[in-house]
């Protein structure tokens, strides 16, 4: 019985295997997520601080550049440093998974976006 399989039987088994693999995929990825989260407390700290600093640095650089181009010193630097501060906070909240991602809907009704960024 095991030896004389129809070609259709093989097709069916392949489909079953694919379905089983597809069912396993999300499990595996969530397992991966918890593993990296446990290991990455130190990585998390570095990540959040680098996000925040990057926002401020880019804001200051943009402001300085605009001032040089347009001769509006020091207003560009002041305004863009503040914007950069805002962007830094936004980056941190975003990578902590507390704010919606780029381009998606703002979390309405006061709820927190459950999707988490890794």
């Amino acid at each position, binding site marked *: 019985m095991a030896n004389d399989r129809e070609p259709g039987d093989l097709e069916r088994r392949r489909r079953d295997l694919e379905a089983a693999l597809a069912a396993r*995929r999300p499990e*595996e*990825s969530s397992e991966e997520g918890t593993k*990296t989260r446990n*290991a*990455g407390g130190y*990585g998390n700290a*570095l*990540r959040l601080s*680098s*996000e925040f*600093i*990057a*926002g401020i*640095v*880019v*804001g200051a650089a*943009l402001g300085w550049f605009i001032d040089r181009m347009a001769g509006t010193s020091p207003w560009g630097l002041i305004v*863009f440093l503040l*914007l*950069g501060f*805002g*962007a*830094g906070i*936004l*980056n941190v909240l*975003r990578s902590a998974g507390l704010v*919606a*991602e*780029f*381009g*998606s*809907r*703002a979390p*309405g009704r006061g709820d927190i976006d459950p999707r988490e*960024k*890794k």
Partner: protein
Amino acid sequence: MANDPIHQFQISKLIPIEIGGLDFSFTNSSAFMVAVVAAAGAFLYLTTSSRGLVPSRMQSISEMSYEFVASMLRDAAGSHGMRFFPFVFSLFMFVLVANLFGLFPYFFTVTSHIIVTFALALLVIGTVIVYGFWKHGLGFLKLFVPEGVPAVLVPLVVAIEVVSFLSRPISLSVRLFANMLAGHITLKVFAGFVTSLSAFGLAGAAGAVLPLAMTVALTGLEFLVAFLQAYVFAVLTCMYINDAIHPSH
């Protein structure tokens, strides 16, 4: 000099080349980049060349790295994102192998220089911007306008979103570079304690066991960081590519 923790990051010219006043020298950094690409390419090519249906150990390492990156990209960017698979996989393998190469004694760590990681991050963000505009035209700019924001606040929110977007390559590159730099300096400093303590006779040598144990532990941590940073770099690349493919959900 033997105890200088920064010395390991010095660039030295192996073959000085100068074209039109610009320095194109082949440095030790370039040599290690070539070595990284050659090692990663040779590993993937040689391990998969037998094409065993039942993979050997080495072949299953290659297949696992493929599956790992493929599922990461599919989760983040959907099946449309799979056209970027060669790009993401090359980046992941380059960063991973460069990080791991850096853990060999006397080897140069390519990713501990910010110019290298920044160039990689610019490549990522350049791809995102070019593909986003090519695919969606000006619709790509919707990325910067979250829905449901009051009209009065839109200019402010857009300005903040733009700065936040521009800060991505910086944070992407600084994270990788800072992790590698800090890790290698820490390792070197603790290893240096071992030699300088053991110069103080028997008591010093007994005390040197502590930094030695620390160095062993840190080496393990560095292996973790090497994998983790390559993973983080690839995951964030996937998420940025997702923004380019779907600027508004």
